[in-house]
Structures are given as C-alpha cells and as structure tokens.
C-alpha cells in the first residue's frame, strides 16, 4: 500500500544524522520534524531567519513575529537564534546546512529539479528553493511519484522550467526510495505492498533495479 504523507516524512526522517542542521521545505518536508529519532540531535533552520525551530505553538501562545518559511506560526527551542535573510542564505549558500528536503513537480534522472513554475498557469515563485538546490550537497526530494493525471514525475528530462541542475541525491515517494547516482535513478526501497513492476511503470526515467529490493522499514 502506498505511503501517506506522514509515512513519507517518517521514512525521510531515517536520513537524519546526529548533528545535522536541516532545512525543510513547505508541505511534506515540514512533517519530518515530527519524526526525529530520539537518540540524535538535529536543528531545524528556516530561511526566513530562525535556527532551532520547535513545534507549533499551543493555542493562545502564537506570536505573529515568529513564523517559518511556510508562514506558519512556530516556537523555538533553547539555543535558538534569529537572524536576517542575508545571514540565513549565508548558511544555505555557504553549505552550513547539512540536509535539505523539499517538494518537487518533476525530477530528472540527472538530478535536475522543477518546482517553481508551470508556464501560463501557475507561478508561485522559487522562494528559497533555487538557492537551496544550487548550494546543498545533500538534497532529498519528498513528492508523489506521479502527478494528478497519473503521469510520472521522475523523468528523463524535466519538462517544466528548471529550479536547479544535477542537485537531487535522493527521492522518497509514496511507493519508493530512489537514489540518483551517476545521473541515473537507482531503486533502493519499495513501500510495503508495492510491487517493483509498479514502481518501474510509474517511472519515466531509466530506473536501475537491483536483484533484491528491500521493503521500507519504519
């Protein structure tokens, strides 16, 4: 059975390592904060100017001067700090953030990503995504494997305007974990109850499949 958004987030949380500074994009990535393994310490950075984000506030304690990049009210943990947008992107561009997780409309087998614009139709803007993907050495995409029309989002070549070139290292979808190695997709894990053939048929780009594909564990 394909994963729901929470399980995608939970699977990605297994990629967190002790001492990581992590930037989580809007949507599924935000949920990862709920699944940090207990034995490790990580800190969450939000590009609007906070390091050391905590959980959402309890009702009545929300502060309009305290939000994340998704404009949601947040809290901070002890040891947090605030800074301006220039310093925030110093952290990002300067490769001080260890892991970036973001959503995508398309990813190519080369690791190109598109997530900011559908020409003539939808223009949200790139926000901080172009800076993040251009700088981070460790980028995981969290997304659905196919779009609403049932078309694969893991492509030979991105059709939508590019956000960044050759930057995505790993994709976690509702059906699979796929690494990008030497500009090719490599199937690493499948969701419980999902067949390898289904993943292959849902992936437009060339997918390398090993003899044995382990099932995701939670």
């Amino acid at each position, binding site marked *: 059975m394909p994963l729901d958004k929470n399980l995608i987030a939970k699977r990605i949380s297994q990629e967190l390592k002790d001492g990581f500074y992590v930037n989580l994009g809007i949507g599924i990535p935000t949920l990862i904060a709920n699944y940090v393994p207990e034995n490790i310490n990580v800190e969450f950075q939000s590009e609007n100017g*906070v390091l050391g984000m905590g959980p959402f506030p309890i009702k009545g304690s*929300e502060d309009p*001067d305290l939000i994340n990049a998704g404009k949601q009210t947040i809290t901070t943990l002890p040891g947090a700090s605030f*800074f*301006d947008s*220039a310093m925030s992107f110093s952290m990002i561009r300067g490769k001080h953030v260890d892991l970036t997780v973001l959503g995508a409309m398309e990813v190519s087998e080369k690791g190109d990503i598109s997530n900011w614009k559908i020409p003539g139709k939808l223009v949200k*803007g790139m926000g901080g995504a*172009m800076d993040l993907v251009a700088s981070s050495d460790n980028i995981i995409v969290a997304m659905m494997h196919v779009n609403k029309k049932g078309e694969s989002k893991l492509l030979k070549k991105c059709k939508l305007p590019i956000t960044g*070139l050759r930057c995505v290292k790993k994709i976690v979808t509702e059906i699979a974990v796929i690494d990008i190695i030497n500009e090719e997709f490599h199937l690493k894990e499948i969701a419980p109850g999902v067949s390898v053939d289904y993943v292959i048929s849902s992936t437009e780009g060339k997918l390398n499949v090993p003899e044995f594909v382990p099932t995701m564990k939670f």
Partner: protein
Amino acid sequence: MINKKVSSVTKALEGISNGMTLMIGGFGLCGIPENSILELARSGIKNLVCISNNAGVDDFGLGLLLKNKQIHTMIASYVGENAEFERQMLSGELKVILTPQGTLAEKCRAAQAGIPAFYTPAGYGTEVAKGKEVKIFDGKSYILEEAYKADFSIVKAWKGDESGNLIFKGTARNFNPMMCGAGNITIAEVESLVPIGQLDPNSIHIPGIFVDRIFQGTKFEKRIEQLTIRKK
C-alpha cells in the same frame, strides 16, 4: 546625536512619487511596514516598482497596493498566497521579476554595502540566469547578480531610537536589516520609539547611519497568515 525622528507616517513618506522604486521589508505578512503601506495605499501614488520578498495577501500588505493597481513591476521571490497577484501577472497587467530569495536578500545587502555585483550559484542553468554573466570558480558555475537600486527603502523594526538605531524581533527581522541604506532614503517605522541611550549598543541590529527617517507606527495589526497550532 543625529536626530532622524519624524512626526508622522505622512512626513516619513514625503518625496515618494509616481514611478519610483521602493524596497519594502517583511516576509509574508511578518515584519512588514504596515503603517507605511496603508499610507501608500491612501496616497494613490502609481507606477511603483516594488522590491519585496512577497506581495502580501489580497487584502493586506502589498496586496492593497496591487488591488489599487499602484504597482507596475513587482520584484519578489514568492507570490503563492496572493490570487490577485497571480491574476495580474498571468494577464500581463503586472510585470513580475521572480528572483531567488537568497539572491534577493544579497542584492539588497550589496546595495547597502556598496558592492555593485557578486557571484552566486542560485539560478545557474535556469530562466533566472538568462542574459547574466557566468563564471566558473573551482569547477562550479556561478552567475553575476547586480545590486538593486531603489529610491526609498521602507522597513519595520520592533524598537528604534531617535538616532535611527534599530532592533528587530524574532522572524520579523527577515529582509528589513539589509534594506536599510540600500535605497537612497530609508524610512523605518517602529513599534516602540525610545529615547536615545536606551538601546544596548551591543544589541543594535542596524546602526542609525543606515536610517534617514524614523517614526512610531500608530497601530500594528500584525496579521497572522497561517495560524498553526498543536494539540497540547
């Protein structure tokens, strides 16, 4: 002490006229200069070029100026929460220059700092890089981005003193500090304007040299865009 205090938002905005370029602080609705934006909306000044990370929502922040069609060109990184914005952009009524958020921040900071241009990896290989110089450093490609030019910068701070020193609060800091001194004239509206000597010199985020006019806003609504709470 060089006194930057002005008595009202109207006096603070003196000199802003049709066709000017304004930098406006804030991220979403957080840390925006509410009083100045309301006054701009009342003023009817038109054909503005606005540099701001977002464009507000339909009925607050820069969304008010959009609704009035006071904005000719919008330079921003993200416009996802504003339906009127998207409509004007897709119809061609509004010219939009989308810019990566970190590049936007750095272009403001460059203007403040007298750096005419810098290289950044953000946007290389994308639409954003069109017409821009590319240069390789250590095997990686970067594009050349130039500092913004603006007639006025309008920012919002938490506390300020009469010599223009500013302290921001929480994530309401965002783009405000870098915009100070980045435009020819910088206007700061503050929640609390304190007498000189009351701010700790060690904790000032923006020294008064970057600020030309300062006033205390009469009202701050501080609207929350996405109230998100957890169950206790």
